[in-house]
């Protein structure tokens, strides 16, 4: 089992990873000064999950803000998911963005262009 549950903070997002039902959630803000350190545990959990993944893996990305140092780490997370997707699990990434937040939509599209996994862009109402 490679489950992970990290509480969000002003600079880091909530992360929930449940290997039992193949679900990953990243929600909130991701603006830590040291992103590599923060994302290390998730990268490791995904590597372990790849040994015996579920038939379907669903990913929800609900980020409000992320810095450029996180953007590299998020790409690394997606690259791990890409490996899982080309193996025994079908992965889908739901990229949530608030209406009018073109920058966040565009950021999702940037990843979509790089990563070979189906992306679904989901517009949500502002809180």
């Amino acid at each position, binding site marked *: 089992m490679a489950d992970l549950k990290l509480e969000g903070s*002003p*600079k880091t997002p909530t992360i929930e990873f449940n290997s039992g039902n193949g679900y990953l959630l990243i929600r909130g803000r991701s*603006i830590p*000064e*040291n*992103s*590599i350190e923060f994302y290390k545990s998730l990268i490791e959990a995904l590597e372990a999950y790849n040994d015996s993944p579920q038939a379907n893996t669903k990913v929800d990305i609900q980020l409000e*803000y992320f*810095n*450029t*140092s*996180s*953007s*590299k*780490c998020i*790409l690394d997370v997606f690259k791990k998911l890409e490996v899982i997707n080309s193996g025994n699990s079908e992965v889908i990434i739901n990229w949530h963005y*608030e209406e*009018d*937040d*073109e*920058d*966040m939509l*565009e950021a999702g599209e*940037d990843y979509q*262009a*790089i990563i070979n996994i189906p992306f679904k862009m989901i517009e949500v109402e*502002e809180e």
Partner: protein
Amino acid sequence: MDNIHDFYNKMEKGNIMLSFKGEVTSDLLTSILQIMESKMETLEEPPKIKKKVYNILVECLQNLYHHLDDDDFKTKINEKSALFMIRKVDGEYSIMTGNFIANDNVDLMQGRLDRINAMDRDELKVYYKEVLNNGEMSAKGGGGLGMIDIARKSGKKLDYNFNKIDDEYSFFSLNIKVAQ
């Protein structure tokens, strides 16, 4: 100290919302972001502007933070110090930063900034993806994406300047205007 009032007036006339001079720490960064977020909340800025300003603030402040974090940076009193200001004039936000940089690094930095400034919106998007996907990530994270991201989000050219201080150092100023 009878010029404190002058100082106040200068900042008032310059529409300075917030300014800081000194060493940029992780805690300071958190505080500035919280202060600016609540200020923009009070001013009832549209979510779009709020997000843009916040994002650019994060990148600018973290640039200063990581720059000062450099181990190879020689520690003379001034060089650890940076300047940071936010102003709002006629509804337009400007984020200004200033810090010391070794003269040896000026050419490289200027080259990067000019390359970014020569690009239009679509070219910046392509360049961002290229650096994101292929660029080496430094231990600190950035990997050269910060300035590209600032240029993309601000929608304006990076307005910068290098002032040579002495044989070793220059003062690097950056003024980012956030397009409405």
